């Protein structure tokens, strides 16, 4: 029982630290919130993000130079827009909450940003990638540390074309998220000379894809591109196999998750996907983050967007340290963020509160793990993708 022991040791350590460093006057407590999908199909991502945010707060609370003690409230948006709007309203309406780190799912974030604006709650998005979350409005309260799906799809299209693929079939979910992926990928792909044989919109909770996939089998594309999240990705990949389709399977950042590999099993091998930002271990503060995360002994992995949640939480706390627990002041402070140090690299917000994340990482599943393309046996030529 390694984990509980570690946890209790960590707790004991925290208590010991707290006991030795309690100042004469207790610090004020400031409430901040984390919102993400803690249950449901993409909960692995949400829990990884939540743990990373909890870790950031725990580390800050151990820091005796910090002006405040932070209290993190974690809320579950279930990756459903209707639930997301409820918890967003609950959070924003609570005047004690100074700021929030919000949303992995783009469809949820799209519904929630209006609420944050209305209540004047400064938020930093930690995982949702739809451009419109920051670019579709002029809300000063909304910021994002991770990149958007535009760059991701540009690199994805170019990469696949460079590997000699000619024809695609596109499946996307019909939420804003899936439609966005479809739009940007199709744009970049046709510009680069690729051909899309068919595009299929599917609902976000669909179980049976055999009709769509049989039609795709008839079209016989080199690649099946899927713009959507892990649960659908798992089902589509499994049903491809049931129908004997041997096309290359290409996903987006939405399936870069350990739960995809767990769900699909051996069939995951050779799946490619793209994500903005460098992998955790290659980030400037990646080693520090990963070792702290390991020490804290969480039950779930940090997942692809954990480092962004960690960076977003720290940025929010930095803002509160600088200007005090006041929503307006924090919003103003965040507007001028320029080269702010973080474990994901320097953060700079543009006019829309969007951080510039230039690096796109290409992933391929090799032996059950998402491996950076350049480090994989596929890049070295030892293994080959389907139908290169």
């Amino acid at each position, binding site marked *: 029982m390694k984990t509980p022991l570690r946890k209790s040791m960590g707790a004991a350590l925290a208590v010991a630290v707290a006991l030795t460093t309690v100042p004469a006057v207790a610090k004020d407590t400031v409430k901040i919130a984390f919102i993400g999908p803690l249950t*449901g*199909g993409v909960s692995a991502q949400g829990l990884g993000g939540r743990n990373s945010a909890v870790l950031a707060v725990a580390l800050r609370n151990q820091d005796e130079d910090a002006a405040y003690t932070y209290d993190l409230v974690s809320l579950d948006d279930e990756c459903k827009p209707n639930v997301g709007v409820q918890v967003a309203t609950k959070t924003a309406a609570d005047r004690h909450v100074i700021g929030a780190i919000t949303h992995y799912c783009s469809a949820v974030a799209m519904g929630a940003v209006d609420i944050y604006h209305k209540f004047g709650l400064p938020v930093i998005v930690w995982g949702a990638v739809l451009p419109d979350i920051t670019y579709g409005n002029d809300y000063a309260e909304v910021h994002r540390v991770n990149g958007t799906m535009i760059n991701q799809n540009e690199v994805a299209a170019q990469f696949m074309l460079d590997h000699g693929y000619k024809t695609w079939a596109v499946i996307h979910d019909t939420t804003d998220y899936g439609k966005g992926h479809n739009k940007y990928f199709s744009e970049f792909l046709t510009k680069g000379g690729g051909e899309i044989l068919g595009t299929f919109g599917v609902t976000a909770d669909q*179980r*049976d894809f055999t*009709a769509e996939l049989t039609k795709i089998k*008839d079209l016989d594309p080199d690649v099946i591109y899927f713009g959507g999240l892990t649960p659908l990705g798992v089902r589509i990949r499994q049903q491809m196999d*049931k129908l*004997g389709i041997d096309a290359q399977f290409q996903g987006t950042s939405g399936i870069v998750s350990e739960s995809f590999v767990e*769900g699909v099993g051996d069939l995951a091998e050779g799946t490619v996907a793209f994500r903005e930002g460098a992998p955790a271990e290659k980030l400037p503060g990646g080693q520090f983050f990963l070792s702290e995360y390991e020490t804290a002994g969480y039950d779930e992995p940090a997942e692809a967007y954990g480092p962004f949640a960690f960076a977003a939480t720290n940025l929010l706390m930095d803002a509160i340290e600088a200007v005090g627990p006041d929503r307006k002041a924090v919003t103003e402070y965040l507007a001028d963020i320029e080269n702010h140090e973080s474990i994901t690299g320097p953060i700079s917000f543009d006019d829309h509160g969007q951080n510039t994340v230039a690096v796109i990482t290409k992933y391929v599943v090799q032996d059950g793990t998402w491996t950076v393309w350049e480090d994989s046996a596929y890049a070295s030529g030892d293994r080959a993708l389907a139908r290169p």
Partner: protein
Amino acid sequence: MDIGLLGQYLANGIILGTMYALVAVGFTLFFGVLDVIKFSHGDVLMLGAFTGFTAFLGLEFVGVTDPWVQVLVVTLVAVAGTAFIGAVIARYLVLPLKAAPPLNILLITLMLGTAIREAVRLFYPNGSNPKPFPALLPDASTDLGNFTLRADSVILVAVGLAVIVGLHLLINRTRLGLAIRAVAQDEETARIMGINYTMIVLVTFAIGSGAAAFAGIMNGLYYNEINFGMGLLLGLIGFSAAIVGGLGNLYGAILGGFLFAALQTIGAVALPFASAYKDVFAFGVVIAVMAWKPTGLIAERTSDRV
């Protein structure tokens, strides 16, 4: 379109149709015997799938790893457990309300369905997350041109159709079936003839719920995934199938199930617009059929129910 692909569409449709028909059969049985619409049927199906999944985890725990034994035990436990729950629902929720307006039963079972769904979500360990249902059937496959035939799909369809035929024989060829038909036709006369009314109602609900559990297991084995919300759409589709076919008529339920699967497949394949609208298309046709034949394609005759 080449013949292989046509075969593939047909095979996909048959699997879906078998599942829908199994759900629709339950609706039609309940309506035939008791004149009630049990809206919790889809969630009972989900409960069956989770019962089977729990049985699988139990088998793994005690070290039984032979897939054939596993699939047999999983199915038996799920069907028996869910049949029992179905009978309990009939005894304590449906029968006491028999004299009440039908709307009350409809509402009660609608709420019961929500209660079952939320109970699994909240109380089953990690119940809000999808569960990977094990692939227990052999996955060998042969390619016939563009048509990939998989052993597990064939077994599922064969067993599913066998269950439907078995139900048909049970209703039409056995003494129990005779009693069920008698109760369906005229409750009071059936009582006078010495038929144990309560027992027949309970057995009917057990049979319908068992069939739903079987559909749930089939669903899990085919998609390799179950979740707490899986019964919602299946229940709705099964209900529509039963209505379109003719509520109260066993053949109608089967016809309705396959018709709905065919509509979904056509909606996804043959229509020029995006496949996102396939459910809209299928339900739209259902509405049209109901406007055309309000009593269903195979209309129920009062003298020939169930």
